[in-house]
């Protein structure tokens, strides 16, 4: 059975076993290795992606559930300027400036959770600490990530 998805705006198909975790399909079939493995059981958040505007742990999503889904991964966030320079997403840019990424292994998942939170702040009434609770970071102690998210929220706010 062929499964069709749109990943970062591109149509993709896979013949993987329908029960294969979406994470493995992203990493192995699509070679989108930005999305990381940390635990394989939905607890660390390293594999976080946005699927149909929802935040999911891709290690827990059998790829058949992604049939015709729209998937956003960390590779799809930055844009290219006319002169070829990379323009980071405001969340990425703020992480860069505030030290939100250290070893970087939690970062793709954390950034996706951050992007999703800025789109849907209503889902985390208690704010950032709640919004990012599903994403473990062992390096930062979260403070720099909070600072980055506050800066990203500022940047995204219309002046």
């Amino acid at each position, binding site marked *: 059975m062929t499964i069709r998805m749109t990943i970062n705006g591109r149509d993709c198909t896979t013949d993987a076993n329908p029960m294969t975790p979406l994470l493995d399909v992203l990493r192995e079939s699509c070679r989108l290795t930005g999305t990381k493995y940390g635990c394989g059981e939905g607890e660390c958040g390293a594999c976080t992606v946005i699927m149909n505007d929802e935040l999911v742990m891709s290690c827990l999503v059998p790829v058949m559930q992604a049939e015709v889904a729209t998937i956003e991964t960390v590779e799809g966030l930055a844009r290219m300027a006319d002169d070829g320079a990379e323009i980071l997403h405001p969340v990425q840019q703020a992480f860069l400036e505030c030290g939100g990424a250290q070893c*970087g*292994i939690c970062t793709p998942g954390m950034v996706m959770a951050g992007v999703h939170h800025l789109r849907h702040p209503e889902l985390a009434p208690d704010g950032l600490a709640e919004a990012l609770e599903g994403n473990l970071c062992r390096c930062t102690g979260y403070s720099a990530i909070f600072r980055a998210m506050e800066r990203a929220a500022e940047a995204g706010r219309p002046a």
Partner: protein
Amino acid sequence: MTISADSETKLRYVGRSVTRREGADKLTGRSRYVDDMHVPGALTGRTIRTSIPAGRVRNVRFPDGFPWDEFIVAGPDDLPANEVALITADQPAFVDGIVRHAQEAVLLIAHEDAGLVHEAARAIEIEYERDAGVFGMEQGHVLKQLAIRHGDFEGAFANGDVIFEGEYRTGAQEHVYIETNGFIAWWEGDGVVLHGSHQCPYYVHKAVKHAFALDRDDQVRVTQETTGGGFGGKEEFPSLLAIHSALLSRKAGGRPVRLIYDRAEDMACSTKRHPSLTRIRTACTPEGVFKGVEIDFHIDGGAYVTLSPVVLSRGLLHSGGPYLWPAARMDGYCWFTNSPPYGAFRGFGAPQSEFAIERHLDRLAAKLGICPIELRKRNFLRKGDMLPTSQIVGEEPELERIVERALELSDYRAKQSGYGEGNGRGLGLSVFYHGTGFTGSGEVYLDSVVALEAQADGFVEIQVSSTEIGQGTETVFAQIAAEGLGIDIESIRFRKPETGAVPDSGPTVASRTCSIVGGLVERAARQLREQLAGRDIATASATGPVRAEARYQAPPGLVWNDDTYQGCAYGAYSWGCNVAEVSIDPVTAELRVESMWGIYDIGRVINPVLAIGQVEGGMAQGIGWATCEDVVLKEGAMQNTRVTNYIIPTSADAAELFVEFVEHHNPCGAFGAKGVGEIPLDGPPAAVANAVTFATGKDIAAIPIRPEDLLA
């Protein structure tokens, strides 16, 4: 060319929060970690491990139903030397007949079908003959013993002063780097190529060369891929994976083999922080002036020597805390047990012993009826004081200023009197220090070398084996090099660490990278600047690279005697103070660290954003170790090997962290830098425990502090 003395205003990069150099790659998913490598034709490897802690392997059964002839199977007989070379080579790469701990490798299998490998690994059955095993300290054999003697310690306890004793324990701690251990290996001709996640390329190199009895250094090429956290957990341990993956590949005729652990395997078999037991006996005047201290510091080493002797050493050397002890007897014991070997973990023994002394001082203050802060102030180390190893404190640590700043920022006194004792909320304080770099003559033996090379394309390349593991090595080295060279930082690049291609600048451990290796980068940069003599980089290197190397030289007066344990243990010390504010739920006894303040003297702060990141992350790890991180051991092995049941702090648990620096520059470190990576682990446990004692009236003597300890 002479370089004028730096004044703050002249520095262009040092002291500034230059953006993390590999940051954009990490943020866009471009960075390549070992598991991201696409290696066509690679087999997947898996390790078959012991399930008992002590005994003998009788038989290994390969049950029917698997195409065993398609598998690569490798074991101890395939390895020229079944040894992992480190300080000693007592640890085998595979069980050598005798099982000494659970989770020890028995054999390896590999196949191109990853799913099949995992099923097959589960199906293999091992039959054992069981022995009893030793679990816990003060039983069995001593792995290493150390002693420090200073002054008339017997006399100190003999003349009617206040004698006070206590016993303190700390639990194991799992690193939980979010990237598990992994290596990919293949053979090219008579040499092996290894790519992996690790802190110390030359440790891996040494271990692989030894295990395969290879003659030439260039037969082992170890490259560090982007590494998703280490914290000491990828110091010595990755050598095992390197040997294993190289062996499977060799048996597969050189075909690449991926050996990447899943989380449960990683947590079960990898090293942890050494559990500790410290007994302290102090003598002081009724006013709290210290006369002498006796300390017995015990750690559980696990089944093999690995790095335990040096962990014991650092722990013992820091066991008195940053105080003047006119007399001291300090004895350290590391015990062999049937646990998987305990290993390097950020702080390396010092967080254990400093927890004990800092908790002891609060208990002593209560006994004396003196404010715990006052007690500390009466005994702080000052310039010119002698440490128990006879080292004279060469700088003014300014601990009072550090402590006062922490009290002020946290509003300690007002809050504490407002909460009152035993009402479920409170603050606690700890003061601590940490020696920069390898202990004693360690840096001399390391003999580290760095190189800077001006190249024809106009770049200066930094060549070191020091690895970027999240702390910002590439960035701070680029800052130091650009500053020393007087060139734009954009013209500096960092060579990916690969043995043979970069000189051995020593391991990425012991808070030595920024200060000590950075100091060599600074020297090499100044030297290269002279060699370039004002020419631009491309012109100067048009006919070949212009290269400058710097080799470690011990600072004058840094003499250490390993036999007497006397002398200068460290060339520089960092100092700090933490204040913790905690709350305890009256019903569930759930402990929450609401806030933590940290004031640190880490010498020159090369990059504030990165330094704060190091410190905050370390504080959070220390808070986790003191509160929720509970390694459940059964017969020496960790049972809760998942992130669902071994709990590290999440964003919802995260304490609010406040960090400031006080700068006393270290004449021997890069632009005055001292160690930063490990000191953040030294203070949080005691600050939290002292706060919990204030808030609950419970006399906390062990971490982690579990809710059941507070309910009892």
